[in-house]
């Protein structure tokens, strides 16, 4: 866009004229839609919010009727949030059923390696691969009624029935377990016990952990909602700000 203003206009002919027409029609549309030409701009928020909802989509594109979180959308947003100096903190809201392990771990690693304060809030569900994402942030909240399903890694589709397939799955599961235990206070032993326990889920192994239990197991830091999450994030932003003593301004 800046090119247009800088470049000396070589030919004041039709192309420019067309651009002008488009601009005018854009303004006309706005007048028709909103009754005014410019939409009031709010102050930029220093906290940005990332919602991870529905299924976490990996390399396979899920049908359009599925609610999905695509990593190719989330990763650039995380990069932008990390890079933009005006953004001081990131709130991640989860309501996910899980999904692709690789994509979920990629998001979790991205969130955990951010230098800005991050807070996650699990609403509704943070199941399966949502668990590593929920623990990836600096501080995590879970709504009282929210649940997290912890279960072993599964594979759908064609699988070659050889021992190597099992080993591959086992390694993948180890990556999930080690990520969760590194980023939360649950021990590997306890987490694996939850993951492999029988009788909690219908015809499946694993367990379903509700709000308070997730906190007592040490997976999540605190039970809370949006109010507490924003409050905590603001506190962390304050702590993260470079300390400016009284004479700091004088030097400049």
């Amino acid at each position, binding site marked *: 866009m800046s090119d247009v203003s800088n470049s000396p206009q070589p030919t004041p002919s039709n192309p420019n004229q067309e651009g002008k027409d488009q601009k005018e029609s*854009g303004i006309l*549309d706005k007048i028709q*839609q*909103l009754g005014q030409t410019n*939409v009031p701009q*709010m102050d*930029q*928020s220093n*906290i*940005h*919010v*990332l919602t991870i909802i529905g299924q976490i989509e990996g390399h396979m*594109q*899920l*049908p*359009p*009727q*599925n609610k999905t979180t695509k990593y190719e*959308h989330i990763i650039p*947003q995380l990069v*932008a*949030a990390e890079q933009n100096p005006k*953004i001081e903190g*990131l709130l991640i809201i989860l309501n996910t059923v899980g999904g692709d392990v690789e994509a979920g771990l990629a998001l979790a690693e991205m969130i955990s390696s951010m230098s800005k304060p991050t807070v996650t809030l699990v609403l509704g569900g943070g199941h399966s691969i949502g668990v590593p994402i929920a623990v990836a942030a600096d501080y995590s909240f879970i709504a009282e009624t929210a649940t997290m399903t912890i279960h072993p890694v*599964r594979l*759908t*589709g064609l699988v070659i029935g050889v021992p190597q397939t099992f080993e591959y799955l086992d390694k993948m599961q180890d990556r999930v377990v080690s990520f969760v235990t590194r980023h939360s206070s649950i021990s590997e032993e306890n987490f694996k016990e939850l993951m492999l326990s029988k009788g909690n889920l219908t015809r499946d192994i694993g367990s379903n952990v509700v709000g308070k239990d997730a906190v007592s197991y040490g997976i999540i830091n605190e039970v809370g909602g949006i109010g507490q999450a924003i409050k905590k994030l603001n506190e962390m932003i304050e702590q993260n700000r470079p300390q400016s003593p009284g004479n700091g301004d004088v030097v400049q």
Partner: protein
Amino acid sequence: MILYTYQAQESIFPVDEQEYNKQQLVDIPGGQLLVEREEGEMGGVNYRIVRLLSTDPNMYLDQRYTPGQYFQI
């Protein structure tokens, strides 16, 4: 027939390829919009907003990007 399976629905009942083509992403300042193509009455094409993809919470208050609105591409 009742089919009990652990398989995902889409791996048993494949979705029509055309369904994928209806939706597309449009870049807007500060984020992206997921829009769905709709055939208009006069043979024109309308794009209805399905979802706003942005981390800026203020953008969700902007009426121009409210899901369900028509969007000019």
